[in-house]
């Protein structure tokens, strides 16, 4: 691995919409880590599985376009959303599996001078979490820590699309992808909180269809983490963040108990340990107060 990591960066839609603090904190953290981000500003939404539900070929072609735009830069791709990871991996798996299908999809891109090629230059698409552990390295990350998250109790929340289905998400080659968040928390000097919901669903996909089911899931996981003594949760998925943070007061009503647990985006947690201030990481934009996390941090000045 060369010293400098440079990736074609797909920020996703939500990180520039309802969770702008994610996009902002990613930029700060990338700079601190020395990861160069080449933003794919012409790329389109991954479809979040919803477009695939409507028309699989449409979803495959839309994502082939994103991959092709990334390949044009000669770099591998990075995303910051579990849902992008899952939806894009699904399409990539299908494109890679069948050369005639790939040719058919590429036909739709040819008018735009684009083409998706399998395995060219070892092309991969990784969530920031995977990149951090597999390419950047936990030891190197630990060495960058200037404000260890000592005594901070952090509950990991993965998001379904980054842990399942295992067969699609490279778990054969990287079997520990479902414990990376724990490893990152430890590398940053924090303490892992074990609770029931870490790999469960936040309920977001059914928020418009069955609000009760959806918020009951979010509220239960937040409540379980509080009961296990968590100071905050951390997630690599902005959609999970919407249900766990933005909807937290509504979820509290559904599960009928007080909640109030800070939910951090992965780059925010990393940023705090690297010495960035909560404010520049956009933590004031959260709905659930992050005050407690900040108090904990203040005890260990950067």
């Amino acid at each position, binding site marked *: 691995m060369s010293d400098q990591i440079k990736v074609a960066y797909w920020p996703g*839609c*939500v990180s520039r*919409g*309802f969770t702008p603090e994610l996009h902002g904190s990613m930029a700060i953290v990338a700079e601190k880590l020395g990861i160069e981000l080449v933003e794919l*500003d*012409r790329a*389109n*939404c991954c*479809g979040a599985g*919803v*477009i*695939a*539900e*409507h*028309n*699989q070929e*449409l979803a495959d072609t839309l994502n082939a*376009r994103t991959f092709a735009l990334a390949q044009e830069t000669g770099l591998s791709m990075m995303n910051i959303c579990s849902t992008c990871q899952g939806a894009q991996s699904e399409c990539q*798996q*299908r494109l*890679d*599996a*069948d050369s005639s*299908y790939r040719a058919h999809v590429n*036909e*739709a*891109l040819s*008018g735009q001078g684009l083409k998706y090629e399998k395995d060219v230059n070892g092309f991969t698409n990784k969530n920031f979490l995977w990149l951090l552990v597999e390419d950047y390295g*936990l030891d190197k990350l*630990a060495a960058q*820590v200037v404000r260890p998250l*000592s005594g901070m109790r952090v509950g990991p929340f993965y998001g*379904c699309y980054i842990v*399942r289905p*295992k067969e699609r998400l490279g778990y054969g080659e990287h079997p*520990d992808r479902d*414990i990376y968040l*724990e490893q990152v928390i*430890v590398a940053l000097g924090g*303490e*892992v909180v074990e609770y029931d919901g870490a790999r*469960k*669903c936040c*309920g977001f*996909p*059914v928020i*418009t*269809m*069955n*609000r*009760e*089911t*959806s918020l009951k*899931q979010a509220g*239960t996981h937040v409540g379980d983490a509080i009961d296990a003594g968590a100071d905050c949760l951390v997630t690599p998925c902005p959609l999970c963040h919407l249900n766990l943070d*933005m909807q937290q007061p*509504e979820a509290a009503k559904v599960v009928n108990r007080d909640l109030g647990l800070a939910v951090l985006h992965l780059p925010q947690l990393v940023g705090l340990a690297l010495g960035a201030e909560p404010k520049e990481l956009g933590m*004031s*934009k959260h*709905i659930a107060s992050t005050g407690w996390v900040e108090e904990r941090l203040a005890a260990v000045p950067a």
Partner: protein
Amino acid sequence: MADYKIKVRRFQPESGQGPYWEEFKVELEPSLSVLDSLLQVKDREDGSLSVRCSCRAAICGSCGMKINGQSGLGCKTQIGEAQELAEKMARATASGPRTREAGREIAGDDERAQPGAEEAAPIIIEPMGNMPVIKDLITDMESTHWTKIRRVTPWLLPHGEAPEREYIVEPESMIDITQSMACIQCGACVSSCLSMEADPDFIGPAALAKAYRFVGDPRDAEGVERLHDLAEDPHGIYDCTHCFSCVDACPKDVAPMDQIMRLRRKAGEAGIEDPNSGHSHELAFVKIIEKKGTLDESLLLQESFAPGIKGKLVPSRRAIKEMLGSIPTAIRGIKTGKMRSLPKLIPGIHHKLPGTAQDEVQAIYKHAEEHNEEFNLYIKGDEGELAEIEAEENLETAIAAPAGEEAPS
């Protein structure tokens, strides 16, 4: 031979006590199964330990259970692998500061900090979830599994008079349902279902996969009726939270979630409007990306509940309720600065992709709409062609069974 420690969640109703954990030491080859370890305990140590099993070869579907929190078959999970997973998870949750140089975990003052070393983490074995427990690992499959299976009318409802001999169908027309025909009714998917945890009324993965087995069957005459029924039930196809748990739990690659997505696609094609606004949500999403390239969240909310001009002139009672319900969230968002910009708040003024990029997205829509072939759905794994051949082989076995038969085995 190797030594293992299993930790079993037990429940003996006649004792009048609640559930409790009990650890046992077993000795067996790593390639033997978790079920074998339980049978060893039953044989050598405690005859009262109760577990259902029959075939011991992943065929009968009796031995569903949770192993290290994951739902599956006891007879299909090797004890050696279960041990590795138990240790990995124990290591992950044991925190302690990392030394910067060595990158190794050292023990903190937390007592959980150093498992593994001398004491191997036990393999955790529990009865299936989302079902009442009758005794130890035996669950009541009637109340949550079989009742729901019957709910979807799991038999063929054919056109007209039955033919004198067998029904004749083109083999290709059955490929679409071979996956769902492989179900052995073990309940592992039901046990793993995260929507059902929150909503016990959800019809659930096994029953919906079974429903697709008949909706997709060319001999069945009631496909559209079935779709209406499953889409209009508020706990039906639009109650699935797309979490993939059932996909990973299923020992037979039925991928129940994929079957649910196929049901949604077919219900959408049939123009069925559901009370959960599932179909309008899907259409709204697809249209927004066609117009804007990236997601306009406010517009998605509005169009999901009150689609088009008609939806806004005559909004449904649910639309009004849901839109009002989202106001407190929006106000909180404005206060913290999350949504402090007009494009985020007012549906429809979200930006398009730059330059010609939006035209490129629209060209893709045109191409995909002209060509959409259902068969791409089955491209999977490393060699798409192989998957297809496999599907055909499964199919031959499946067709050999008489109409309406459950499993191809």
